[in-house]
């Protein structure tokens, strides 16, 4: 193997090497700050190599990975989101008494696993990427291991994720048994060729089991039951990471295995299944969020609903759908990282500030932070001037373009229901609190966290007003 053969996976190598670097540094000389700097440097360097890699794209690395421009786009997105997660974690972990450095090793490995998923072209790579990501996440969820809630969430996650991995493996086996192939493009070609009457139960079951595994990672109804508990129990920055990077990678994978539109050909039952999942996610996510009093649980249910919206556009099919899905995903990344970022800067490993009551009167105490949170929530609700509005616009555009009227109407109605619980949080922040004792100026927030939030807010407004450059970038990368 020549060195040039490694170029396609250079970003993953860099991230892996920086994980090793943090590990060595932790062994020789522990320093939280150095660990963060190393991690950020590794991720930024990996992003910096992406343009060079994309010049020669599509490149194939063995039969496992296909690094095309789509994979590169998603890798960039996942790395940047990981940078934000690292920066948000810094202030949070400062308040942690145990060892902090290993956290970043896990986070870097998870990021590497996520990019493997985005670049996989073979069921083996899919499984490897999924496991690298998941195993790191198990440990991350339970990282502040001295607190009860975190351990509980970690155990829940590990059990359910392991079961879903088993489903995925079984699905792969069934697909291999019927189709004799493990590569996505041959499987895709097979799906395409298949006429409805030829659909074979074994293969359908295999595909169905894959959808179960993917659905679990995407936390869509009916595979969502773990979501609120794990979101609530995990440390806030990890929750943000799970909600964005983990879902984004699996979504990229979904688009690769079943390109939008492939659902119709020969796979009619799959189309129906995904459409029902989308509808159920939109309805259940939004309705259940109404019943919550915990901000992290509200955001958990809201993320279920958002994935339902994304699937609506995904079902529309064609390049417009991929553009819409990707742009919405970017919007969702910015907004979700921002929302969990706000929770993060207010929380610590000992005490997660996630009860709705904790946010009462926040506008008085911390006007800037409350303003940021308001912007994030309005973006989740899809109000103009925010990226969430533009994202929803592209989604609805794609869906209306394919005349998916039922799904669009459900999207409209449920997102209005969703507005109610976003407004509830906003109301809580803005209400006057008659009985607060004046405790003086609040403690200063972590600098890296605040700067990250500021950057996310600027991005939120900028993309909300001028989405065209990013959309053009997406189109050039997937086209």
């Amino acid at each position, binding site marked *: 193997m020549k060195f040039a053969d490694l170029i396609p996976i250079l970003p993953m190598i860099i991230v892996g090497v920086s994980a090793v670097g943090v590990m060595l540094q932790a062994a020789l000389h522990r320093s939280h700050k150095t660990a963060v700097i190393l991690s950020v440097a590794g991720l930024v360097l990996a992003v910096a190599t992406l343009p060079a890699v994309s010049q020669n794209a599509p490149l194939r690395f063995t039969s496992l990975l296909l690094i095309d421009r789509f994979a590169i786009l998603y890798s960039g997105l996942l790395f940047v989101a990981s940078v934000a997660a690292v920066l948000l974690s810094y202030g949070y972990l400062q308040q942690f008494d145990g060892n902090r450095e290993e956290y970043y090793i896990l986070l870097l490995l998870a990021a590497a696993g996520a990019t493997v998923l985005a670049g996989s072209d073979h069921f083996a790579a899919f499984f490897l990427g999924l496991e690298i990501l998941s195993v790191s996440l198990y440990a991350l969820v339970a990282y502040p291991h001295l607190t009860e809630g975190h351990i509980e969430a970690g155990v829940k996650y590990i059990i359910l994720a392991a079961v879903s991995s088993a489903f995925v493996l079984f699905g792969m086996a069934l697909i291999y048994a019927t189709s004799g192939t493990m590569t996505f493009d041959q499987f895709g070609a097979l799906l395409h060729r298949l006429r409805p009457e030829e659909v074979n139960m074994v293969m359908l079951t295999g595909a169905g089991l894959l959808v179960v595994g993917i659905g679990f990672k995407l936390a869509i109804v009916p595979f969502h039951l773990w979501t609120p508990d794990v979101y609530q129990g995990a440390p806030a920055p990890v929750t943000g990471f799970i909600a964005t990077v983990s879902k984004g990678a699996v979504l990229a994978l979904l688009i690769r295995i079943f390109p939008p539109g492939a659902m119709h050909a020969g796979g009619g039952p799959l189309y129906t299944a995904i459409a029902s999942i989308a509808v159920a996610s939109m309805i259940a996510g939004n309705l259940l969020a109404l019943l919550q009093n915990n901000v992290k649980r509200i955001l958990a249910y809201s993320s279920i609903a958002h994935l339902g919206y994304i699937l609506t556009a995904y079902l529309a099919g064609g390049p417009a759908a991929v553009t819409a899905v990707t742009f919405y995903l970017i919007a969702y990344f910015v907004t979700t990282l921002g929302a969990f970022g706000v929770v993060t800067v207010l929380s610590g490993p000992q005490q997660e500030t996630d009860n709705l009551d904790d946010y009462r009167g926040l506008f008085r105490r911390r006007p800037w932070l409350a303003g940021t949170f308001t912007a994030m929530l*309005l973006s989740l609700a899809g*109000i*103009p*001037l925010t990226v969430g*509005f533009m994202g929803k*616009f592209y989604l*609805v*555009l794609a869906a*209306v*373009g394919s005349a998916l009227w039922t799904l*669009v*109407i459900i999207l*409209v*109605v449920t*997102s*209005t229901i969703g*507005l*109610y619980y976003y*407004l509830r949080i906003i*109301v809580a922040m*803005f*209400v006057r609190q008659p009985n607060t004792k004046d405790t003086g100026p609040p403690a200063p927030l972590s600098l890296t966290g605040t700067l990250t939030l500021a950057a996310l807010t600027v991005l939120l407004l900028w993309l909300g007003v001028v*989405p*065209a450059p990013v*959309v*053009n970038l997406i*189109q050039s990368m997937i086209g």
Partner: protein
Amino acid sequence: MILAWMIAIPTAGGLLAWLLGRRQAGWPRWVALATLAVDLIPLLILVNRSLAGGVAASGGPWLASFDLPWIPALGIRFFLAADGLSLIMVLMTVFLGIMAVASGWTEIQDRTGFFYFNLLWVLAGISGVFLALDLFLFYFFWEMMLVPMYFIIIIWGHERRVYAAIKFFLFTQISGLLMFVAILGLYFVHGRATGQYTFDYLQLLDTSLSPAAARWLMLGFLAAFAVKLPVVPLHTWLPDAHTEAPTPGSVILAGLLLKTGAYGLLRFVVPLFPTAALDFVAPTAMGLAVVSILYGALLAFAQTDLKRLVAYTSVSHMGFVLLGVFAWNRLALQGVVMQIVCHAVSTGALFMLVGSLQERLHTRDLNRMGGLWSAVPRMSAVTMVFALASLGLPGLGNFIGEFLVLCGTYHTNVTATVLAAVGLVGASVYALWIMQRAFHGPNRLGLKPADLDGRETVAMTAMIIVIVWLGLYPQPVLDTARLPLQHLQQVTTQAPLSTPATATRPASTRGSFLVTSVVQERGRP
């Protein structure tokens, strides 16, 4: 460029007010006042252009336009244009904006910076709604005016503000989203038919639609405007929002936000879907209009909360707007424009007076008022004027509006006209009821509130001058609106079903096509 200023000035003023409010609580008021005064400059330029017959000179119905590409890949443009109709609306917006600032001068003491930021951004959004001719941009502004209004109600409102604000937001949001889906539907129908995907209103006017598609898309638009107007079964957000909002919020809600619904019906629903609107939905809409007029008046009469009473009168008065729009002939449309402007002034003034009373008496309950005339003669007299305006006394603006609407409607639907005219009786009852309960009779509670102060007197004088002027000499308004209304009517009579879509028209002639065809009155019989 003038039009872009009319959005940019309040937007920038709002940010400035917010920033300065952090230093000194008193400054934002002055910033807001100054901003709106500056905002009048571009408007006066336009008024001047309109009076000088600029309409004919510029070769189109548009006095000014502003066009920038925004998201070119999807055919979205930042396209603003003003004809006489928009000009009247924006003028009304800035005038009532100034009145709103004046009315909140002493009432708003808490977080003034953020308050005036929201106020100015609502006004920017409303101006945008009246000026946007790109449907995407229109929707953008339509949504943009909601959030600041929501904050105004929820932070500075009265007792049940949270309930009212959320109800207001949810009602407008779901109806707005339905309109958004309809906009996208229209976009695709037009794009597929002509190969040119655009949100440009002027091009979308030519879309040929199948009757079924036209009906569904029209219902999407109608949903948004009917909620905003409001039309009776969809009106329940209004009394709550108007009552719980602080005085400046109520002035803007009643004076301006409702008018965006009326404007939307005039500008979009009927011109874009003439057949569906005038043949399919008009009988129902006129029926609902009559119901709104009568039911609104009835409910107004039943209220003991003075502010809620005034809120219900809006439901009744907006029924006339709906009636006039669906009658869709020259007289009715002129009446609609007059009614929009006069209702904005008279109801805005009534809300300001109720606000002043509440500030003094700390109640809105009519049972806890009475015999105030001797204590506050000036305020009582002013209230009298606007109560009379509200009941449609000749000589004051509202009479002209309602009279023209009834005249126009008589040509199309006699029954509706007769029933709507009964509503005028109801208006007399509730308007006199206000005077009777609050200002006449014995002053049982021994109330001695202070009379209108200098600021309030100046504001009220301005409002009285406007309403009397509109009542005695409405011609300038009618003249300004004449050409745009003619064009709107003309668009609907050239049934787009028969004409093939002409999308190949070069962009340079954008806006002028309406006058290229012969201008002639063709009111529907």
